[in-house]
């Protein structure tokens, strides 16, 4: 058993694909559709065969309520590890993304929070042990 795919709800799959590839820098991995259903995933270019993130259309009222509450409370919908959170912050910000928290030192890590424009906050984490 492996953790090969995890999901995040998005309000618009095309908009999400643009944000997760062009702004965050991930690569599109799978894109398949059957009728109204679209299976869309991205992966890190540093690890193309690694864990995939499914960009799932949020057409579920219960999931929408959960997503909105998480967003309002400032809780991340997903967390990504990086070995250069400041560099990623500058790069992603330069592409027009809105950070709700710049790189901030917390216990044993530095974190930043970015709005994915699709209903979620995404936390970037650099563990202190990864620091250069």
């Amino acid at each position, binding site marked *: 058993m492996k953790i090969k795919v995890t999901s995040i709800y998005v309000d618009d799959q095309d908009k999400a*694909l*643009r944000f997760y*590839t*062009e702004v965050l820098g991930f*690569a*599109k*991995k*799978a*894109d*398949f*559709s*059957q*009728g*109204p*259903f*679209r*299976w869309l*995933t991205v*992966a890190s*270019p540093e690890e*193309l*065969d690694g864990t995939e993130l499914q960009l*799932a259309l949020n057409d579920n009222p219960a999931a929408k309520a959960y997503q909105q509450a998480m967003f309002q409370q400032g809780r991340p919908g997903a967390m990504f590890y990086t070995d250069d959170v400041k560099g990623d912050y500058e790069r992603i910000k330069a592409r027009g993304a809105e950070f709700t928290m710049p790189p901030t030192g917390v216990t044993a890590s530095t974190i930043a929070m970015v709005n994915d424009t699709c209903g979620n906050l995404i936390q970037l984490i650099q563990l202190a042990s990864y620091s250069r």
Partner: protein
Amino acid sequence: MSDREQYTPGPASGAQIQKDGEKWTLILVRELRHSPERVWQALTDPAHLREWAPFEADGSLGAVGTMVKLTTVGAPTPQVSETTVTRADAPKVLVYNWGAQDIRWELEALAGGTRLTLWHNIDRRFISMGAAGWHICFDVLDHLLSGTPLGRMVGGEAVKFGGWQRLNAEYATQFGIKAPNWPPQAAQES
């Protein structure tokens, strides 16, 4: 070997694309050796649909105004679409929606059979996948009505099948588009 193991779909054929700007409609034509009445039943009756279609219906699609829930088969999470039948002229014309997409069937009596035409406005990026999927569904439908059922082949099960992958590539070539990225290989372009 069972019929299913021996089954290999024929070459891509009988498909056209109607283009209205960014909105594309797939048009598929298939001649079946079964009467329009029998084909109509297979298109509308939930027990028949379950044997060949890419969705399950919780009620008959055979009457105008009926609200039916269609569940896409093979999606990893339940994908339910509320569907309204907007036209049902048995055994000739059947129109309903599948999510935001429109499905229109026309049945024309032929000597000893039916010419079945499907219009389906699939997102143009996935239109060759849809053509390949329906092609296989029509083969399964034909076998079902002939009394030699192959068993439904849809969703993830279909796309793992070499015949589907070949059809997807063949239809993409016929439509002059790039075959979609499936099975997934990391694509650098977005």
